[in-house]
């Protein structure tokens, strides 16, 4: 550790966002980068804990103390090597990860956490700019073939590692661009798509075979996939959105968040969208239903499209500003978070249940809603009751449903292969990420349910490891049993 007393002498400083008035007019990334010297100071705050809770809380197990020490010492190469070892795509997580590490940072006990996410981003961006990130194709090919279906973070991570291990990997993607939710779910102002392309180029150079616009089960029979490859990894995400089945749902102007976000990302890319298909917030009263990250992405996008007003409704109570006893350090606390999108203008409402859409000429224009109350039942579960007389109406010319996803799409591949599902409708896997079909694995949201990018990456990594073991039938590395 470079500076044992750094945490005492240096305050936390975030790199910050571009000014609101500037950034709402474009789709460029909102977050800035910090000069190297300041970044080194921020890294010096890391205490190199005996038990680094950040590392424990990080799904991919980034070893923050080690690479932060390297940052402090100005050794970007070492920092990059260590970071890259646990995380295939720090440039993604460095931008979009909610950073459970920072919640668990020991400094956060009685001080401000180390700026771990931004430090991570600084490392990978520095590595790119120094030309450290170059293609390193495997020296030998194993002769085994693996198909990875779905090119979201899980599929990408899995395919990357298997390719590096020397297997021949074909990555199938049904849409026309690689990246899944990264490309079409996350707005450009949070993750510029050049970042994805930059990585994909390297993967291609390393010999990864990518086939976009191919839907397995439609363009290629599901059975062929199993027969043509030694192993298959299904990483198709959890794309079945949670719907709001209330009166007026069929009115026009009510969209799932992902439809909206995907379209905007296409527009930014330069795709031409027909007028009928175009979902526009310009000059409209926009209501976003759902208080999560996707919801806030909708808010940010609507602002950029020039919405007249934006209201975000959430059925759950307003989260606390500080940790409560029920979510002590180092657990991830459900806290109120003001995202960059919220700063750009939006009204947030909590304890609101949408009751009904009404419209005019098939177009939605009003949403009726009611306030609710929550209490804990005898079994510990939360019980919701409506507050009598609290119903109200909101103008709503564009409604975006961002209530999350329920499970992967079952039709097609999943059904074709006869994969077992768990109680929540996700693909059921064993400890080795294998489904009930021999040699068919699944990773990421499709088996764990919708979650963070970083979880998807970790799943992809673990699945790759399992597939690798499956392929070489390694028997030595058994894990201990209690």
């Amino acid at each position, binding site marked *: 550790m470079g500076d*044992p*007393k750094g*945490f*005492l002498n240096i305050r936390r400083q975030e790199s910050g966002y571009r000014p609101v008035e500037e950034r709402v007019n474009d789709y460029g990334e909102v977050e800035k980068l910090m000069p190297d010297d300041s970044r080194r100071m921020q890294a010096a705050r890391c*205490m*190199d*804990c*005996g*038990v*680094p*809770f950040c*590392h*424990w*809380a990080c799904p991919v*197990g980034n*070893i923050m*103390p*080690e690479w932060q020490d390297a940052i402090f010492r100005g*050794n970007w190469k070492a920092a990059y*090597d*260590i970071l890259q*070892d646990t995380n295939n795509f720090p440039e993604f997580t460095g931008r979009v990860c909610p950073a459970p590490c920072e919640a*668990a940072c*020991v*400094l956060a*006990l*009685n*001080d401000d956490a180390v700026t771990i996410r931004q430090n991570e981003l600084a490392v990978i961006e520095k590595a790119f700019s120094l030309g450290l990130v170059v293609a390193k194709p495997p020296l030998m090919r194993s002769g085994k073939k693996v198909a990875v279906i779905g090119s979201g973070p899980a599929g990408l991570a899995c395919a990357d590692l298997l390719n590096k291990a020397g297997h021949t990997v074909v990555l199938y993607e049904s849409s026309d661009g690689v990246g899944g939710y990264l490309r079409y779910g996350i707005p450009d102002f949070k993750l510029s798509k050049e970042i994805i392309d930059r990585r994909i180029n390297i993967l291609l150079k390393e010999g990864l075979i990518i086939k976009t616009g191919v839907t397995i089960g439609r363009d290629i029979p599901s059975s062929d996939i199993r027969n043509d490859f030694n192993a298959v990894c299904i990483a198709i995400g959890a794309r079945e959105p949670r719907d709001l089945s209330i009166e007026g749902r069929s009115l026009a102007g009510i969209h799932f968040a992902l439809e909206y976000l995907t379209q905007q990302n296409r527009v930014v890319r330069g795709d031409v969208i027909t007028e009928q298909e175009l979902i526009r917030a310009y000059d409209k009263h926009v209501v976003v239903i759902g208080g999560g990250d996707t919801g806030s992405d909708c808010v940010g996008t609507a602002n950029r499209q020039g919405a007249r007003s934006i209201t975000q409704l959430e059925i759950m109570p307003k989260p606390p500003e500080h940790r409560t*006893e029920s979510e*002590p*350090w*180092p*657990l991830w606390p459900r806290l109120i978070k003001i995202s960059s999108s919220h700063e750009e203008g939006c009204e947030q409402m909590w304890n609101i249940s949408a009751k009904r859409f009404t419209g005019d000429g098939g177009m939605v224009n009003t949403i009726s809603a009611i306030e609710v109350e929550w209490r804990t039942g005898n079994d510990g579960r939360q019980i919701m009751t409506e507050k009598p007389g609290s119903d109200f109406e909101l103008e709503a010319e564009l409604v975006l449903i961002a209530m999350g996803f329920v499970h992967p799409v079952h039709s097609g591949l999943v059904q074709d292969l006869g994969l077992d599902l768990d109680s929540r409708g996700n693909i059921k896997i064993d400890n080795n990420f294998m489904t009930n079909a021999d040699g068919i694995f699944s990773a990421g949201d499709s088996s764990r349910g919708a979650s963070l990018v970083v979880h998807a990456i970790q799943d992809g990594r673990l699945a790759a490891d399992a597939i690798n073991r499956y392929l070489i039938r390694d028997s*030595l590395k*058994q*894990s*201990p*049993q*209690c």
Partner: protein
Amino acid sequence: MQGKLPQRQGLYDSAFEHDSCGIGFVAHIKGTRSHDIIRRGIEVLERMEHRGAESADNKTGDGAGILMQIPHELYRNELPTLPGPGLYGTGMVFLPRETGEAEYCIRELERVVDEEGLRTIGWRDIEVDSSVLGKISRASEPAMKQIFIAGKNTEDQAALERKLYIVRKVVEKKIRDSSLSRKRLFYIPSLSTKTMVYKGMFMPNQVRRYYRDLSDPLTSSAVALVHSRFSTNTFPSWDLAQPFRLLAHNGEINTIKGNRFWMSARESSFASPDFGSDIGKILPVIEPGKSDSASFDNALEMLYFTGRSLPHALMMLIPESWNEKNPIPEELKYFYEYHSTFMEPWDGPASMVFCDGRFVGGTLDRNGLRPSRYVVTKDDLIVMGSEVGVQTFPAERIAYKGRLMPGKLLFVDMEKGRIIPDEEVKRQIYTQKPYRLWVQLNTVNLEDLEVKGEVPVSMEENRLHEMHLLYGYTREDIKDIITPMVETAQEPTGSMGTDTPLAVFSDKPQRLFNYFKQCFAQVTNPAIDPIREELVMTLTSYIGEQQNLLEETPRHCRMIKFKNPIFTNRDIEKIRSSDSPGFKSITLPMTFPVRNAPGSLKRAMDALCASVEDKINEGCSFIILSDQNTDRENAPIPSLLACAGVHHHLIRAKKRTRVGLIIETAEAREIMHFALLFGYGAGAVNPYGAFATIHGLVNKGELQDIRYLKAEDNYIKALNKGLLKVLSKMGTSTLRSYRGAQIFEAIGLGNELINDYFTETVSRIGGIGIAEIEIETLLQHDTAYNSKPKLKDSQGMYQYRKEGERHAWNPESIYFLQWATRTGDYDKYKEFSRVVSKQNCSPHFIRGLFDFKPQTPIPLEEVENEKKILKRLTTGAMSFGSISREAHETIAAAMNTLSGRSNSGEGGEDPERFVPRPDGTFTRSAIKQVASGRFGVTSNYLANADEIQIKIAQGAKPGEGGQLPGYKIDKNIAKTRHSTPGVTLISPPPHHDIYSIEDLAQLIFDLKNANPKARISVKLVSESGVGTIAVGVAKAHADNILISGFEGGTGASPMSSIRHAGLPWEIGLAETHQTLVMNDLRGRVRLQTDGQLKTGRDIVIAAMLGAEEFGFGTATLIVMGCVMMRKCHQNTCPVGVATQDPELRKRFTGKPEHLINYFQFIAREAREIMAGLGIRNFEDLVGRSDLLSVRAIDHWKAKTVDPSALIHVPDDGEAHATHCVQTQIHKINDILDVTLIQKSSPALSMYGRMPVSIDMPINNTDRATGTMLSYEVSTRFGEDGLPDDSIQCTFKGSAGQSFGAFLAQGITFRLEGDANDYFGKGLSGGRLIAVPPEGSDFIPEENIIIGNTVLYGATSGEAFIRGIAGERFAVRNSGAVAVVEGAGDHCAEYMTGGRIIVLGRVGRNFAAGMSGGIAYVLDNDGTFEYFCNKGMVELSAVREFEDQDFIIELLQKHVKHTSSAVAKDVLMNWHDYLPKFMKVLPLEYKRALDEMRIAQIEAKLARVREEEQLGATY
């Protein structure tokens, strides 16, 4: 018991036994024989009874005996046919009681006598009185007969003596190899024409009563050499009583295993003209299965009979230190050097007395830690003993008094009738042969050898990476181990103990090194301070072919000499390319072919051993085992396996001494690795891999401005320092004796592996074999050549890593525990407990291998209440200083609320905490610790304890001292520690008043006197053999014994110590419990354990393994907010627990309530488990290992472990108590202090306080005089004590040990006579005066008057001594003021405060480790500078008036109290003497004084300015 040690059972093993004792002799210098000498000898023995021990029956001693000249008149009286003196040999023969077997032995003996051409004259029955024996002794009593043997022809006495030796050796072997069932009873104490030994399993006062001969007035001798034994032995036996044939030994030989192996290895080259073909008959030299002292006697005897004189042989076996710090003649140094090339020292504390009938004498080892004092009378008597006062003579009869000095000989020639001075004896010996010339001509210095061309160090990057992967170098190895060593030339420091699984439980491939733990000294022998006492330590050694031990030729020293055993690539190349005669080398690959696995490693080892043997036969003197040739096809044989395997193979083949073994390996990198290689026989090691790694770091610029050569040098320095530390932990001084001594134990290695390659290494729970080692090596090989990760593994051995080694304290266990205790939520606690148990079963700790056997449950209400369980809980010893005041007081407050006990740690305690605060919080620590530093240990501190704990060792760094750096010592800490702010405090590795078990008994006695109401507890660290040590401790009357696990936490400790020294508590506790039960001592003591305890389940298992009480250290800290930063040693604890930084302390959030919750949860959980097991009272759990079963494990390595010995129920488990049922008898009810207290009552009265004056006689059995009196003063009047001179006592005679210990303010003791060791220990304000008795006419300033270790840990008070003191005067003094007229070695060592004046010569190593206080030395002959250790101090003339005034004033007092002639002279001629005074001032202390002075000046200046400003305003 039937006269033999019990079988190895459970964890008990007789091989662990130690002993130490009281020794002495009485002799008539002119050789006049009389019965009076015998009488006096026995009296000496009886007066040292307190140095011996008694067993559970309180009647059986550990052994005592007497060696004398043959009482010819006595025997002649009974056997008129006896030839004249010297013409026959005789000796007692111990025989089996069973007649048939006894007869067989007698027949065999007679037959051998006959075969050797001698004649049995006859047998004599020895009259004994068995009724005086204790039960245990009687059960093993042998039958006895005395044999008389004469030569057939009239041979000369020397030849007959030699023959008798052969007879004894031959018959011993015969009986040993016979099939007799009681053959162990057969023993010949002595068989000689000159001397006779009477001994047995006695207490000293039984010797005379048992052997009728000894009371017979016809029994006469000019010498009586006696010994009484205090053994930690559970089952002392008759044959191990002393004296042996030539000597009696008080001490312990730490390197005994190595010495025995080497001796056996040498036997093949024995040749002696005196013996000719008979030489084979005396083999094996060392009788198997005997004690270390017995083995030493065997070796000495062999050297003696093969032609060396007694002093010569002793100088070979226990050479004095001869490096440049020692003022001995050059020629003598060459003598030592010559012999050191072929005989390693028998290393360890030793006070020896020896006698061959003509010569009698004594010697001390180089450290001189065992006290040995003597008195010579004007009528030619000499009395030497472990104590002074063992014989009383009128003052005017005494010619002079002296003491044995480190490495010196006391030598009396009774034929010539004089005492031959040490220099003269040695001169005779070192001038026998031209040793200097021989060494100069034959011994070659490694540095003088040439090597041609460049020797590469670096490795190409890919190869380096491959090498790292192959040998499992991790990022931690580089960052946390190698880099700090390279940058600082020191071993890195860590904190908070180790919580990773044992190597055998780990899922990660482990280096073979990790399956071993270092052994360390505790109680029975002292560790050494390798830094402050470096004058006795050395790494210098030799490598080459050894010659016939029994001869002395120039060729013997044809060796290569090197000062450090870590060879650079260049060094090893020198050896490899050397072609001079006698220095031929061969390099053999230490690899095995991968493709032939499994079984490949085993075959490769066999082949390697065979080829080494071949090469020796071809004449190679150096074998280099190298793993340079590893590649894709060949994996490295673990270097330790190869080294130890070859070493033991060669010992078995009797070829070991013919070669030097050099290991060239990339595997070794940390200190432990090297220590192991040397411990298993390596002569030198070349860590080329570590060097290449360092080269790589330098090249990449990852080190701060260090060039390679400097980096390499630093690394080697760090290794050397670390090695010295490892050696010193076991009290070993030289690498030569450490080599092959195997001072390690294995954990997790199977028997077969141990027998084949690590012969005689202790391994308690079995474990893996060579097959598993092969797999581990291949896994690593596969990583290096197949999977080839880009980065080295991060590992997570020191810091938690998700994919790394498992840690017991991990994020989950930490936050669950904190969550549960903060919210008081028992369900959350259960979750914590579940996480912990699951992890323990992984397996992680040994306790995880056990399950409870199902029992019939009882309702919870029937189980005893929580409160009773809470009383059994304590917190770990954590000093105020290592943790913050807030944390320290929080713990105390919590434990006092719960009726548990908190532990002060070693740092004193603010007296303000001894009374409850107005708000009811009580922050007094119930347990007061007494550690080697004795910081703040005053009479008052001790008086305010419920329990006093003697810390012998600490789990995280057993065998080591500690250091609290100056920057951590603020005003408050300095106050409680009685030291100076900013001045570093050093805790020495040993307690300077515990060098042996009898010393511990003494300290226990002292402390019991210092607080008769407190329990005395002794803290030991788990290691093999701790059970037998605990037996000694129980016999020494400890009330409580704590067995600490090695996992325990620490504020700061070297990394290698944290991980590699000591054992888990499970093993130590179980062994201790079993051994105490077998010995029927368990009922006398309470057992406590600690080390990573966390849950109710943990304490229930610990109870079943034998513990009654439980300590929690780390868990306590975690409850208070610790998150295992492991930064305690950096003072940056971010939660305010282990820091003194005021800013960080503000972050402390711990509350007593959190701890209260935690301990209540534990008790609650324990009750639930007890209910499930049907146990009502906790007491009924203790020792119930039968309730545990061993769980089947399917972990590939852990399944080879068998911990069933831990739950073994000893044979006597039914008959003997299995938990504490009685209190110890401390024998403090009728001591001198009881009278003193009575007589002092006027002064002690709370009202009157009338001064009193008392006169009393005193003798050496009156020990700790004044200590209990001081307790009475402290309990009444606290820290301030009484007004000066309130109690004045004058004593006449020889005072026992610890005279005036912890003497409180207001008491003055005047001693007219002399005193033993520990005079003024812990002086707490009192005044001590020692003067020679009235009537004596020897010159006081030339005679010794008080013993060793005077004023140890004194905090205040005065001492005036007219005469010379022994070694370690004023050691660790922190406040007393003293005058003495001369002192031995190590004077003023570790002093931190106070002032002393020495008006005469001092010994070596003055002021070592002295960080505070001032010493003034009168340097009459200008030699003082040589004797001073200037490491931490500066010397100057006395210039300041302040100093002069101080000296004059104190000397005036000295004259007033002692009438000292020297002091008078100095005062009269002050100006002549002034220039001869040297002032010794520690640099740090000087700085602190200056800072204080500057602060005062600044304060004054500020006031002046303020006044000026005020003036200006008006």
